[in-house]
């Protein structure tokens, strides 16, 4: 029995180590073990400040893009501030739950933004006091987008690592280009993120790009719901 305990414990520890180390080679985003430890200890305020600065930067990029494209920036009236009180705990979906519902004016289909006007998801279900939001990291999320100053069309497909797909190979895009919303469901031109890596898609007929986000969904606490 003692040997059985030892075997099982050794198996589990080695299994965890293999997975934690091995996943760093197989997934785009590293596990950020050290950043999570820094969260635990004393560097959380620096990380938070960094996140806020990234978000403000995205908001400024959004305004610059709108000015360049002569797009009227939507006024701030009508938005509903809400707090994220819970998140879907499983890997099959990526949903967050807000503390505002139909009694506060939230309706299904409305866009959800972090305060620097970055779109993070869409309201999918509303109860009188709470609402459920499908984020851009949900596999069921999709959105037409435009990329860069040339406004190249693409389709954002949600998932563990969201991608913008169906990009015309002949159109010029580059890492760092702004990705903005092109759907009639939300305000035109609001930021999603920026281009990270550009690669051909599986069939080689189009380009696809991974997205650099200015926020981490684990750190989102305050959001705005826009009609």
């Amino acid at each position, binding site marked *: *029995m003692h040997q*059985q*305990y030892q075997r*099982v*414990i050794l*198996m*589990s520890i080695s*299994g*965890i180590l293999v*997975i934690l180390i091995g*996943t760093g080679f*197989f*997934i785009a*985003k590293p*596990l*950020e073990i050290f*950043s*999570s430890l820094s*969260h635990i200890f004393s560097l959380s305020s620096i990380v938070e400040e960094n996140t806020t600065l990234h978000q403000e930067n995205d908001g400024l990029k959004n305004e610059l893009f709108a000015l360049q494209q002569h797009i009227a920036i939507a006024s701030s009236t009508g938005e509903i501030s809400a707090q994220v009180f*819970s*998140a*879907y*705990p*499983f*890997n*099959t*979906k990526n949903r967050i*739950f807000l503390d505002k519902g139909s009694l506060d004016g939230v309706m299904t289909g409305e866009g959800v933004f972090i305060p620097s006007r970055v779109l993070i998801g869409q309201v999918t279900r509303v*109860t009188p*006091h*709470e609402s*459920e939001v499908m984020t851009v990291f*949900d*596999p*069921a999320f999709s959105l037409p987008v435009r990329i860069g100053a040339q406004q190249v069309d693409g389709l954002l497909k949600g998932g*563990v*690592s969201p991608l913008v797909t169906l990009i015309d190979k002949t159109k010029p895009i580059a890492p760092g280009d702004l990705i903005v919303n092109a759907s009639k469901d939300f305000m035109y031109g609001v930021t999603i993120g920026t281009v990270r890596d550009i690669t051909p898609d599986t069939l080689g007929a189009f380009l696809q790009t991974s997205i650099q986000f200015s926020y*981490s969904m*684990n750190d989102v606490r305050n959001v705005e719901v826009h009609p």
Partner: protein
Amino acid sequence: MTHSSPLRQEILRGAWLLAGIMALSFLANMPLVIRPDVLLVGALALAFFIDDAYVFMMWLLAELLWAKYAPSPSYELLFIGIMGVVVFFIIRSFVLRPAPILFIGAILVGTALFWLVFSFAHTFVAFPFLMEFLYNTAVGMILFAFGLWLKKRFS
């Protein structure tokens, strides 16, 4: 010297197992791309290591209530509860002694069914499913070792 009643031992075993599940749930809050499904693995561990049906139901319900993440009841937690109950009765009806390989098999079936039912496009042929299964197995082995120790300590 009086010995504790078997029922009291079962209740204590379940309480400690649930405490272990709660402690491991911090893994689900780490900034990982894929997180282990500690709730599902915990329900299976309760099914493996608690023999009394009423004690098992009590601690399973406690786990599901503690894990409630939305104001309204969710199908996902109901599924986990049903999985736990089914595995409990299979273990009691067909299996004489819980073994690690059986536990891993239960984790595989549970994870696959969960993805089949709740994932977008209802498929588990995906890299995230494989990663989740590996994480669940690692967490499961920790809970299995803990459960074996509890069974010896509270028997």
